[in-house]
Each structure stands twice: as structure tokens, then as C-alpha cells.
């Protein structure tokens, strides 16, 4: 057992990319020659055995045409080893863009691959026991969406990705482990049901307003990067030759929700976080302004999606 372990350790040291223990690496990752491994598949071994039978038959019957055929098939199959290698070689993982997900949900992550030199066909990415088949034409980029399981809130390290190919004939399998140095943030799960926030008009809380994007607005202000494009007042912008944003009527004083960590006494921290997450979400959907007070920081008062993500991130990263 210890022998096996030491062998494995040695292997991991000498060939870090053979096993998964490759150190995490920064993007972009280019699939070079030293990190691609090629071995015959089960079919490849069986086919090789059949080629040997064919060879013996051709030699035994002293039949040179059959021998030539066997050599042709054998050479084509042997060369397919390079085909599997070339399917991966020079491929680049340029960027990774993660969406947002709450703990327990599937997190959608887009991997952006590019093929700088040639077409790569018959590629297969294994993530968490799921396979994604794809191919990339020469000189193009491809965004491959994958779904990751999320367990708990906080930073999630991207799992090791196994990129493999049995192109062209399925006789050889080339693979390479990718461990991009990328973390994605998983938001806390929301409580499914619970009381409304204190000081939000209590039980007579107005129904969440769903017409945030309605036509009624109080004024206009200049567009700033980060503003939602859906709030742009296109007609007014066209008249003024600059992008203008609709300003909604300021929500009345009662609509400012004060979401306080300290107000939730008697609950364990995770439940508190789940409840706060639900409140933040409801406030965001209702178009409310809200302020989030956490033990170490205070966010807001503000409204909108940027504030929402700031709050959720803070909640996700609570110890």
C-alpha cells in the first residue's frame, strides 16, 4: 500500500498533469505537448489484436496483398494516435465566466475555448461525471456552458476539468487535466418562507411592485457605466444625443428596508444569513431601497442590481 502511495507521489511529482494534482494555473491555459497523455482505448487494444491476427494470416499464407492491406490499416490506425493528440494540442482555455447561483442550485459557468491554429473535432469535456461534446473550427472561439453543482455558500473552486478526445477512430484516447485558478462565488441559499423584515411596514407590507420598469418616472439623469440598460430612456436619449436614465419616484420612507443582522437574535448564523438573503431578494424584486447591516460592514441604503449583488456577496462571504 505504501509502495503504491510512494509510486503515486513520484508520479505526481514527475508528471503532475497525469493525475489531477496539477497546481492550479492562471488563465489562459494553452494545451501544450507536455500535458497531453495518449493511451489506447479498449477498442484500440482489441483492434490491435485483430491487426496482429491479420498480420500473421497474411504472413502465413505468404499473401503480400493482404500484408499490404494490413500494413495500410495498421499505419492509418497508428497515425490516429497523432490525431487524438492533435485534437487537444494548441487548444486554449481563454476565459471562464461564471453566473450566479445560490447554494444547492446548479451554477452555470461558461468556458471560452479558442482554436488559434486549426479545427479541433471530437472534443469531450468531463466535469463532475457529466460529458460535454463539442468541436471548434479553426480561428474561432467557443463558449461552452457547463453546470456545476454547488454545495455551500462562499468561494467554490472550479473542479478539475478533464478534456479528452478519441478522435479520429476511437482507437486512442488523449486527455489533459485542466485546473484553472478560478473561483466562483456561490450566494447563500434563501429561506423558503419566513417573516417579513422588521420595520418594513410590518404585516401591511405592500405587495412587491412589479412595474419597476414602468413608464412613470420622476426625472432623468445621465447614464453611468453599471446602470441597467433597461432603465435607459431611449426617446429622451435620442433627443439629447446622450444616454439618459429614468429616475423613479423615490420610494416613500416606509419603503426603505432596514435589514439588520443584529435584529435576528436567537437564530443560528446560517439561518440568519438565509433569512437576510431572502429579504435582500424580496427587496430587489420589489424595487425597494434597502440597507443591509452586517457585523462588520453596512451596505446601502441603495437599490438596484449592483446593490443586490454586493449584498449577496457580503452574505456569501460571512464567516
Amino acid at each position, binding site marked *: 500500500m505504501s509502495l503504491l502511495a510512494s509510486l503515486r507521489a513520484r508520479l505526481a511529482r514527475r508528471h503532475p498533469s497525469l493525475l489531477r494534482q496539477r497546481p492550479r494555473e492562471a488563465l489562459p491555459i494553452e494545451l501544450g505537448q507536455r500535458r497531453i497523455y495518449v493511451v489506447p482505448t479498449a477498442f484500440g487494444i482489441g483492434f490491435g489484436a485483430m491487426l496482429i491476427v491479420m498480420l500473421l494470416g497474411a504472413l502465413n499464407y505468404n499473401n503480400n496483398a493482404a500484408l499490404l492491406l494490413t500494413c495500410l490499416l495498421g499505419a492509418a490506425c497508428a497515425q490516429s494516435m497523432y490525431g487524438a493528440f492533435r485534437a487537444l494540442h494548441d487548444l486554449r482555455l481563454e476565459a471562464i465566466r461564471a453566473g450566479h447561483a445560490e447554494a444547492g442550485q446548479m451554477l452555470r459557468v461558461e468556458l471560452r475555448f479558442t482554436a488559434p491554429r486549426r479545427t479541433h473535432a471530437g472534443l469531450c469535456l468531463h466535469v463532475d461525471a457529466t460529458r460535454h461534446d463539442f468541436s471548434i473550427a479553426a480561428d474561432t472561439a467557443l463558449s461552452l456552458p457547463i*453546470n456545476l453543482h454547488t454545495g455551500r455558500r462562499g468561494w467554490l473552486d472550479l473542479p478539475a476539468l478533464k478534456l479528452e478526445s478519441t478522435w479520429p477512430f476511437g482507437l486512442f484516447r488523449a486527455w489533459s487535466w485542466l485546473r484553472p485558478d478560478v473561483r466562483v462565488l456561490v450566494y447563500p441559499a434563501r429561506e423558503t418562507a419566513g417573516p417579513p423584515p422588521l420595520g418594513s411596514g410590518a404585516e401591511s407590507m405592500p405587495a412587491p411592485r412589479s412595474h419597476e420598469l414602468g413608464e412613470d418616472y420622476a426625472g432623468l439623469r445621465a447614464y453611468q457605466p453599471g446602470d441597467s440598460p433597461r432603465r435607459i430612456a431611449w426617446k429622451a436619449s435620442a433627443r439629447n444625443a446622450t444616454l439618459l436614465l429614468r429616475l423613479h419616484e423615490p420610494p416613500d420612507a416606509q419603503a426603505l428596508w432596514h435589514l439588520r443582522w443584529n435584529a435576528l437574535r436567537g437564530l443560528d448564523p446560517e439561518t440568519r444569513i438565509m433569512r437576510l438573503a431572502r429579504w435582500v431578494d424580496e427587496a430587489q424584486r420589489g424595487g425597494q431601497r434597502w440597507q443591509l447591516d452586517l457585523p462588520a460592514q453596512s451596505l446601502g441604503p441603495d437599490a438596484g442590481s449592483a446593490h443586490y449583488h454586493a449584498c449577496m456577496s457580503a452574505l456569501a462571504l460571512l464567516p
Partner: protein
Amino acid sequence: MSAARVPAPRPDARSFGLLSLTVAATLALHATHLPLWLSPPLALLLALRWLGYRRGRRFPALLRYALVLTLPLGVIATYGTLFGRLPGAALAVGLLVLKLTETETRRDVHIAVAFAAFTLMSALLFGQSLLQTLLVCAALAPALATLLALQPSAGATRAILKTAVLRLAAALPVTLLAFVLVPRLASPLWGAPGMQQARTGISASMSPGAIGQLLVDDSPAFRVGFDGPIPPRAQRYFRAVVLWHFDGRTWTSGSAARHLPLEPLQALGPTQRYTISMEATRQTLLPALDMPLQAPAATRFTAARTLLADRPVDHGLRYTVSSATAYRLQPRLGAHERALGLQLPGDDDPRARALALRWRTRYGDNPVAIIDAALHRFHDDGYRYTLTPPPLGRQQVDDFLFDTRAGFCEHYASAFVFLMRAAGIPARVVAGYQGGYANRAADYLLVRQADAHAWAEVWLRGRGWVRVDPTAAVRPDRISLGAIAAAQGAGARWYQAAWLVGLRDRIDVLNRLWDQSVVGFNALRQRGLLTRFGVDPQRWQSVALALGGALAVALAFGLALALREPAGERDALGRAFDRLQRRLTRRDHPRQPGEAPAHYLTRVAADLPAEQAAALRALSTQFVRLRYAFTQPAPRLAVRDWIRRAQELKP
């Protein structure tokens, strides 16, 4: 793109279609030797299965088991056994088609493709002509395309087929290397290959109609390359076997002649040196031009100076011989030979014996006059040359000489030798080939089975054995044109048109090359080739080193090719820019270090005359656009247009 959790979906209709195509090709290549009850049902089953698969149907399992059980029974009923070449091929093809009734997973398709490759190879055991081999190799393309179609996101069918063909083409260099270096077996590991195959060509006996079957066989018997010019047609007699013994029906070599000493030969004129490439005959007789001086290596002489190979010619043979066309063979005839040369069976054919005795009394001891009398009889007394003679009765020679008077070379040779022996002149039948076809595209003589011929040799005092061709007396154009032309009567036919003859010449040159370089590449020739490259075939270390070295070189070369960067359109633009830059540099406009391409071109444009400056500025703008304005590769047409305009610029 698909995200599939279940890893074993049913192979799609396209890969099954390609697999069906592979199996259909295999079936077609085997169709010529499969029993008639087998191939049409298999073809029908294949077609039905293909249609059924496209509609997503499964094949009933019970029916499949029934068919799998029936197939070996049928094969045993036909051949009596499951083993051997023919029953094995029938079984393999049948099982291959039946495998298509069970293709529910990728693994099934994989097995079917591997088995199809094996069955394709076995088709070559029935004939290894160039055409056959090319067809079999071509059938590998759909087989590989099937494997490609199983790959995820494989692409269009046309692209798949193209990839398969390209892969095969790319494999050719390694194929040839392996073909040359794979050590040949000196003796087979199992079985006695080729034993069941019918012997072809001239055989060691001449029974009625034996040569007649050959005369309609257009396949090549052997090819002869002469060191000097090809001798005239009338001299092209190739002796294969000398027949001494006649039992009234069949001429054979005779057991008594086996122990005669080699007949002494004295050349009377120039000798011809030539190389014969035999097709496989499965027997040991080797033809040689009348009359060979020495037996080449691995062959030996019979007493009557015909060549015998040490082993049956199973896969073609090349040998070089020198022959004298004017010679004296065995000027002194021993008593034993004389007795053999006068042997006649029992007391058959009384009328022929009476005729010979009449000549004997009329011409006395003048053999030449008797020979002339016989030849004149054949020429003047209404004898016909035909490949389809009427049947002969029990008194074969009498029936032919006095009643039917129609036949071909073997009838004439047989009757002539019979008459000579009855008249007291030692004589024997010689079977071999006569004539042949001089290929105009390359300098060699093609002799077909249809050129098989039989003639006579008579022994004359002081001159030894002398060749006499009685057929020439009946039909001189048999000698000048060939058997079939003589039987049909001369005259240009559509298939003798000049272009067709030229085409056939060229195809035959290819066949000859194929036979010499591939089919005939045996252990001996391999040894010769390896020795020339400094490999000692006797020492296995040397052979292993050569094989390993060649493999290593091939691997390294493959890796270098795999790592190579192909030149895409984007590179084409970059290279064209580099060319332009070199031209400008020669005109004293070098590019500064770190200068951007567009800036460089614009700066140079300022120094040029107005027209060229405008062109260069346009090039500069376009270059930037082509390089950076596209997320997809820049349109090829635009890139080519830029390259063309850059070339046209004359700074």
C-alpha cells in the same frame, strides 16, 4: 454540442449506413467465390436491415439466433467442413452481415468494423491482383468513416469520408516502410496454404481438351523481359513439359523418362538472355524459351531440358535464363531413349499405323520425307483448325486423322507424334506456350494462358531432337497471330482498335509492376533489398535494429508533423505583409523597431508619389481592418484581394 448523461446511445443512422456500405463492399468482394445460395440472401438481409434501422426498428432476436445457427449448417452442407479458405470466407461474410442485426451500442459497431476489416483481408486470399487489392483498400475508407461517424460532433458525411481517405493516403509512406521491413516467414506457421486451389496453366499431362480449356483463358501466364530485342513470333516457343508416354488417350511425362540423364546441348548460334515473371500456377513446371542452356537457382532440369521449380509456384516467381535458338540436342540417342521415343499403346488406331507403314515403305529410311508427307497431309487433306472440335471416339487418333479432321494443337501434335512413332521415327510431344504479345508501352512479352500450345520434337540422326509444329501446317496464322485469332479468322475487331490496345498495354504494364514489386516480394527478395541497405538478414539483431530504427524515425516524423503549425488564411495575410515589408526595405524604407504595421505603411506612403501613396494608405487601412475587425477569421476573398493588391504595388 450536447450534454449527455447516458453514455451509450444507439449509434445514429448515419454511422449504421456507413457500416452497411462497408459490409456491402465486403460482400461484393467475396461474391465471386461465395456459394450461390448465400450471397443474394445476405445482400437482401443487409438491405432490409439498413431500411429497418433507419426507421428505428430492432431485429427480432429469435430470428437472429435462428440465422446464426443456420449459417454454419449451410456452410457444412455445401463444403462438408467449416475450416479452410472457402468455408471460412462464407462463414465470415455471413457472420459479418448477421452482426448488423445486432448493433445497439457503439461497441457493436466497433466489433463489426474490426470484423469487416478482417473479412476484407480474407478476400485477398482468393486473388491478389492489383485491381482486387485497390478495391479492398478502397473499402477501408467507409470502414474508417464509420468509426469517424461514431465520434461526437463528427461533422458532415462528406467531410468524414474525405477525412477517412486522407488518413489512408497519409498512412501510405509508413505502410510501404512496414511492408518492406516486416520479416517474411520462410515456412508457414500452420496449414498448407494454397493446397485446395486449382492448378492453372500447362500441366504435366495432356488429356483431350486440357489445352482447349486454356485456349479461352485470357489471363496472363507469364511475362518475359528480353535483354536483347524480342525474338520474332515464329521463334517464340516456350517449352514447359516434354511428354513421352501415350496410353491411347492421355500423354504423360512417363515414369521411365524420369531417370534419364540430362540431354547434352550444343548451341549453334547466338543465345538469348531473358527474365520470366511467372504468375502463380501451384505447380512446378516453368516455361523456358526453346532451348535453355542452364537451370537458374532454385530450379532444376528434367532430362529433356524443361525447367522444374524446387517448390510449387504459389505466389509468382522470377527467374533469368539464357537460351539458344539454334542448337543440337542429344545428337546420339541411347537405346533406352529410342525405346521411349517409339512407345505406342497396345494395338489401338490401326488405320493410323497402316498409314505410317505405307509411308515407311514408300520413303524408306528417310525421316525428313516422312515428316513432309505427314505435314502435307495436314495441309492439303481438308484438316481444319477449331477450338471446338467434334468429339472423338475410342480410337482417338484414327477418328481424328480419318473422320473428324478438325481440332487444335493438341490433336495435331498427338496425331503427328503417333504417326512418326508408327513410322519408326523417335518423337515426343512438347507442351508449353507459343507466341505471346509484345507490349508496346514497355519492352516485354506478355504470354497468356490462351497462348498454350503443343507441338512435336522428332529425333533425326546427326541433328538430334528437332522441333516440328504440325499445327503450323494446318493453320500458319496460329503461329503468326495466336490461337483465338486463328480460330475466329483474322480481321480487325472492335477490341483491337489502336487506342484500346494502347490502354490494355498500359494496364498490363501496371499489372506487371504490381506482380513484380508487391506480389513477388518474398523472403528472398526482401533479403536482397535489406542487404543493399547494410542490414544483415541472417542476424536478428540487425533486422530488429533496422525495424526499430525505422519505427522510431516514423514516430518522430509523425510527431513533428503533429506539432507543425498549418498555414491558415491569417498567416497568409501576415506573410504577405512580410513580403511587402521586405520589398519596401529594399527601397530604403525599413520598418522601425516597435513600429506598428499601419503606422509604418502610412509613414512610408508619405515618401512615395501620390498614386502609390494612396494605394499604400488603402493597404494600411485594409490591413488593420482584416487583422482586427473580425472576431471570426477575416473573409478569405478580402484577404486574397489584399495580398493581390500588395503584390501589384510597385514602390
